[in-house]
Every structure is written in C-alpha cells, then in structure tokens.
C-alpha cells in the first residue's frame, strides 16, 4: 500500500448480548478512493460504521482516522475531525427549510454560540451571508433551489436523499460514509447520486459506501470490502472479488450447506 490510509480499522469487536455483530474486523481506506462496504444482511456493516462514527461503543479494537485514535469518542467529536456519515433512512431536520439543512451541513460551530449571537451579531451575519451564497450554489447543483424555503419534512423521499447529499457537500468532509444511499431511489436519481459521489472525490473527499446494489458498487467503487458474520472476508477490486469463492458463498450460501 503506497498511499497512507485515511481510515484504519483494526480488530474492531462489538457484542450485543450473546451475538457478536462485529468480530475482529479490520480494513483500511486509502485517501482519495471510493470504497464499497458490502455483505449479506446481518454481516455487521451497519454496526461497523456505527462504531467508526462514534454511534456505538466498541468492546475492543482501534479506529484510526488520519493517524488519530478515535474509537469510542463522542460522535460530534469524530464529525468535527471531518468524518461525516449518513443514515439508512434520510434524517432531514424536518421543521427547518431545505436551505437551513444545507447551512447546517457547513461546519461553522463558532457562529452558533449564544454569546456571539447576542453580542457580535453583525459579524455573525456577515459570515452567514458568505455561507448563504455557497449554500445557493449547492442547492443549484442538486436541483433543490426551487425548494429552498420548503420545510424538509414536506419533501418526497428522493428529494430528502438529495438534501442529505447537499448537506454532505456543504460539510466538505475528508471522509464520508454513506449508509445505503440507493435505498428507495429511482434509476435517474441514482445516476445523479453517482455523479455527486464523483464530485465529492474531486473536491478532496474519500468515500465509503455501504450498499446492496452491486451494479452501483461496481460502477462507483475503486475497491470493495466484503463482510460476513462480523468479519472482513475479502478486500480488493470488484472484478477480482466477483469470482472469489468466499464472497460468492457468503452471498449465495455455500452448496455444501445443508
């Protein structure tokens, strides 16, 4: 491996009661790549990204983000390092407008202090105006401009997906983890999502995608990590893994099983 790993997961383990959902899971993600995380239902993909992003506590193991140990840190602290994740169902801020959803993606936390908003309101407004211009660009890019003042909860499922992506674009993350972005998305919209993901990469982001849509994975990802029963069973290019016996049996069930 020539490039430095942006994300390095080592021996990550998580047990729920008697079930080991993630079992000694290790993989790495090089900067600037798009990596697919695949595996059958119950393989531990979602739990793994929960642990990586701080939404679950690991029993053991290590998660290094750009060389820094982040395992079991609070999610907002991990996020502030530049690791942004999405959820399986879009989690829009429903009562807020689409534009506010995008503005909240921008990581300008200093501006949200009570004290600054009361005593340095003018400066806050100046900074805010600059970001509104950027928000407008992002809204245009995702064809959401005409919906900018609509409350996010009034949008359709597909539009909510776009808001989710626009929010991520606004955050300009170093690493973005997309949890099943193609769930319930029509082919036209899917095409736009692929483009958006490529756009993330050109803007300097690294992308991890959890997805069941294999064609989408094949077209989008540079590399694939395959999980089954909490382990990583293979990591490599999609074309080489497609014929890998372990991968095939994990997905289709081995012929010997009985």
């Amino acid at each position, binding site marked *: 491996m020539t490039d430095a790993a942006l994300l390095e997961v080592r021996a990550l383990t998580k047990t729920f009661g008697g079930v080991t959902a993630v079992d000694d899971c290790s993989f790495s993600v090089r900067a600037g790549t798009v990596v697919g995380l695949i595996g059958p239902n119950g393989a531990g993909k979602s739990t793994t990204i929960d642990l990586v992003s701080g939404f679950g506590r690991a029993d053991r193991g290590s998660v290094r983000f750009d060389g820094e140990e982040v395992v079991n840190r609070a999610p*907002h602290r991990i996020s502030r390092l530049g690791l942004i*994740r999405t959820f399986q169902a879009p989690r829009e801020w429903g009562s807020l407008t689409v534009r506010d959803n995008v503005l909240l993606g921008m990581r300008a936390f200093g501006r949200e202090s009570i004290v600054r*908003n009361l005593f340095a*309101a003018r400066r806050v407004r100046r900074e805010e105006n600059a970001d509104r211009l950027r928000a407008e660009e992002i809204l245009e890019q995702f064809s959401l401009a005409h919906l900018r003042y609509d409350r996010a909860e009034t949008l359709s499922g597909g539009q909510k997906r776009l808001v989710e992506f626009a929010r991520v674009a606004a955050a300009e993350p170093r690493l973005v983890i997309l949890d099943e972005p193609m769930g319930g998305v029509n082919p036209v919209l899917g095409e736009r999502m692929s483009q958006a993901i490529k756009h993330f990469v050109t803007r300097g982001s690294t992308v991890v995608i959890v997805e069941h849509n294999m064609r989408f994975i094949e077209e989008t990802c540079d590399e694939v990590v395959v999980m089954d029963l909490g382990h990583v069973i293979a990591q490599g290019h999609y074309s080489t893994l497609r014929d890998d016996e372990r991968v095939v049996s994990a997905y289709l069930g081995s012929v010997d099983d009985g």
Partner: protein
Amino acid sequence: MSYWISILTEACIFSIMALGLNVIWGWAGDFDLALYGYVALGVYLTIVMTTGPALSPTQYILGWHLPYVLAVLLAVVIVLPIAAIVGAVALRNLREIYFAITTLGVISVLYVIVQIYTPLFNGFNGIAGLVTPMAGPLHISYSNYAYFLLALCAVVLLIVVVVLQRLSSSPYGRAIRSIRDNEQAAAAFGRSVFRSKLTAYVLGAGLAALGGTLFAAYLGAFNPSAWAPQEILTLYAAVLVGGRGNVRGVVAGTFIVYIGFIELTRYLPNVGGNAEFGPSVRQILIGGLIVVMLKFRPQGIFPDRHGVPRSARRTQGTSGATGGGWRDRLPLLAGRASGGRPEQDVIS
C-alpha cells in the same frame, strides 16, 4: 380598571415563564415538567432576600434586606446551577417520556421538601412581607404602584422578547432546532447534543426564575397552596396555542390563554356555594384546549417559520405539517414529528 391592570401584569409575568418553556420545549424539544419549580424558587428566593430576618414562629433561610433588583439578580443566579444539575442528570441519556418522568420527580420532591421542611421557606404557611418593592426609593405612591408594576413587567417582557427573537432567528436558533428535529443527524454533523440541550435547559430555567421574581413583587407572599407542579400545563397550553418555537407567538398564546380563560370563567356562578367551581372549570377548559389544538392545529395559531424570509412566506400555506394523522404531526413528548414514526406518540 385595577382589575385589568392586574390581569395584564399577570399575563406579562406568565409570558416570561412561557418563553422559558419555549426555549426548553419549543426549541430544544425537551418535555420538561420541572419548570414551575424554578418559578417557585424565584418567588421564594426573592422574598427571603428582601424582607429581612424571620420573626418567630415564622422561619426561613437567608432573611436578608437586599434591594429588590439585587435580589432578582441573585435569585436567578442561584436557580441556574440548580437547573444545570437537574439538566445534567436528566438530559444525559433520557429523552421524551423518560425525561418527562425524571423532571416530574424533581419537582415533586422539591414541592414536598418546601412543604415539610419548615426552616427552608416556612413550610405550609409560606412566607410574606414583600410589599411594593422599589416604591420607596423611586417615590411611587401606593395608588400608582399597580401601574408601575405593570410597566416594569412589560419592559422586562419586552427585553426578553427582543433577546430571544434575536437568538431565535440566529444560527443558534437553527442549530438548537436541528437537535430537536433529529439529534443523531445533528451529532453526525458535529453538534454536541448534550451540551446544547443543557444550555437551553439552563436558559429556560433562568427565564422561569426571572418570571418568578416578578411574580414575587406582584403577589407579595407565597406558600405551597399558591403553586403546584401542574401549573406547568397552563404554560404548555400557552406555548401550544401561540405556536411552539415562535417567540412572539408564545407571548400572544399566553395572553390568549390567561386573559381569555380568566375572562371566560369570571362570571360563572358559585355552584353549590363552592368558590372553587370557576377555577376548576378553567382547568378543564385548558385541558380541553390542549386536546383541540393538538388535533386541529398542532403548529399553533402563529406557526414557527424559522429560516423562511418574509418575502417567501406569502406563497406558502400556513400549515406547519402536511399529511399524516395528527398523532404523527406533533407528539408532545417527542423532539419532533416527522415521518410518522410509530414509537413516538402523544400522551393519551
């Protein structure tokens, strides 16, 4: 005339308390039931810090002779860390009904302590003696005092509204609402959910205490029969009627609920010679109002439209929620209604 002066004074004071509730529940989405405890502490602390030492057999703590304004500031400052401790425990991991039950426990314990432990605030008999504060130094005659107090409460309310309005429309207002709408997404985008909720809780409790200090000047005396944990429900009705989250709407809602209901039940006869008949009917009507609002207009008369510029408002409907049954639209307890998640439900 003096009747209307006192009604308006009360409405101003309750508006400040309702605005405190609006910060905690309207913005941060936490169904707090302890708020009236902070009001009561504000009242008690103001009285014990201004009326001098207790004369036997009365007993209470402090017994200072501070000027009223100083007592107001100190009372609020004392309530803040108390609310911070309650919030730190209740907001760490508890949400919705679990948070509500915890805060109900807090105020129930406080209520019993105040009643039973006489050395604190003289127990059941309560404390009295705060007569026309600030009248002396400002040379206000007794006959004009009611007007002065109304003006004072109105000015304080105005300042509170201006400050909260500024916060409401600021990036702070946006961030705290995002935590209410979906706290996991808020955390995923770098917001510290616990810290933000705790800050909002302490701010709201401080406003409740501030309302209490003015209430002390209005009442002059206070005892456990003058307040009860369930007073909070009237404040919830006020926020709900006005428009949850909307600062000016909440003030309007408070005036509607307090003045409307007091006026409506004012001329009721004392059925069976029972003086409690009118006030009891009032409570029933307020309960009915909460149900009716939740069913037909959960977003309130003046819905909160954060982030929508004035120019864009006319083109949109006033409806704050679309589709779904009313249960999906505004669960009292949940942070926010969206997508009809079945596990979120109102108290039924």
